[in-house]
């Protein structure tokens, strides 16, 4: 059996992040006509070990603490920086992956690299080993924190329940014609599912379908109710309203078909996309409508492959 090589989190991150994300953007620079003695205060006060040299906004060299010490030893502190700087400067570009910076720092042994904008070749930052480490640590901390929250939440809901069958039910009331409150049921459900640790991709599908269903109640009915039933395998949403019902269900499913009044359309609703949007997001969708009585809509989104297979076996 071939053993897969483990890729560490850091290895993954150095490919994922780019130079711009970790570089220092607040750069201190000097001109070529400054004297080496000018560096004394700059290096000390700013606690830096190297400075880019700019002439007319163009990077023409780097001068480092090593250059400074050499100059000091030779007693030539009055020479211009132009004569003592390193002209052969290795640079990085802002959009390069961090792995390039790590490789270059390692291979060339320099303490720092100026970073240029790829397009206009202007100096936009400077990067040192310390910046790379700081950037990585910060990213790891953020990721780790998110993972912790995720694990904590997910473990609490289904895994801690001991039962043969578990269904969680959330219910939301929807008020018709109230456009200020419209959307609060679906956004409430979205937040709840996120707290349960359900994957963001699935949550988005549930939230979109629920939002469209909620808007249908607001636009066409006096009121209604949204019920979400969640099992470890699927999320089923039932939407019931007391509206006028749909005369032609098949037509209502056609993209672009709408019976919304003008004032609703002016608000940007009633584009005839609601039901098609729901259908696109759901794995299964059923709708029953009685004219004069109301509409019942039901849709299911599977949480895993097992959910899908189960329902196929049952059918």
């Amino acid at each position: 059996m071939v053993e897969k090589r483990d890729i560490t989190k850091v290895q993954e991150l150095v490919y994922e992040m780019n130079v711009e994300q970790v570089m220092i953007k607040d750069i201190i620079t000097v001109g070529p006509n400054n004297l080496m003695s000018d560096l004394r205060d700059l290096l000390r006060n700013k606690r830096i070990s190297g400075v880019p040299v700019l002439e007319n906004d163009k990077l023409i060299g780097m001068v480092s603490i090593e250059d400074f010490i050499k100059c000091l030893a030779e007693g030539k502190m009055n020479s211009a920086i132009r004569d003592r700087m390193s002209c052969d400067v290795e640079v990085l570009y802002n959009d390069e992956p961090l792995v390039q910076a790590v490789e270059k720092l390692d291979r060339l042994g320099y303490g720092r690299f100026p970073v240029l904008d790829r397009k206009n070749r202007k100096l936009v930052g400077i990067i040192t080993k310390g910046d790379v480490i700081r950037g990585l640590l910060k990213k790891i901390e953020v990721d780790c924190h998110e993972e912790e929250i995720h694990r904590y939440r997910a473990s609490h809901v289904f895994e801690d329940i001991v039962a043969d069958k578990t269904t969680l039910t959330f219910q939301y009331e929807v008020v018709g014609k109230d456009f200020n409150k419209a959307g609060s049921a679906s956004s409430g459900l979205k937040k709840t599912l996120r707290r349960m640790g359900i994957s963001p991709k699935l949550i988005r599908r549930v939230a979109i379908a629920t939002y469209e269903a909620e808007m249908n109640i607001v636009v066409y009915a006096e009121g209604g109710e949204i019920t979400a039933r969640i099992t470890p395998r699927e999320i089923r949403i039932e939407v019931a309203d007391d509206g006028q019902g749909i005369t032609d269900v098949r037509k209502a499913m056609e993209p672009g078909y709408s019976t919304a009044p003008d004032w609703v359309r002016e608000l940007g609703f009633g584009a005839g996309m609601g039901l098609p949007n729901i259908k696109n997001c759901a794995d299964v969708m059923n709708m029953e409508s009685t004219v004069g009585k109301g509409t019942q809509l039901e849709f299911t989104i599977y949480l895993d492959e097992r959910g899908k297979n189960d329902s196929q076996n049952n059918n």
Partner: protein
Amino acid sequence: MILKTITEELGLEVKNAGVDLASDVTGAYVSDLLSDVIANSREGELWITLQVHPNIIAVATLKDLSGIILVNGRQPEEKTLMKSVEEQIPLMSTGLPAFQLAGRLYRLVEEC
């Protein structure tokens, strides 16, 4: 490109000051139909619209959009502004019409 750079480059007025503008903008979608935005916009995109009612925040939250730009000098309703603060959705306004704004934004995001 991060949102902060875009607001500066295009001179957008951020209505909910203090909101996080560090998110990465991946593109933009121009539409005034909410269901169309729901169906066709993608995560991380900016939404350019002239709708100002509170539901635009719900749609932006739903699709994890990076922000909303109101065109033609439109101002958000008070409820919209409140919701944008609550949901932390960057809400911006510009005097430019949608076509002009989209053109400039395209140059900024796609061509650099």
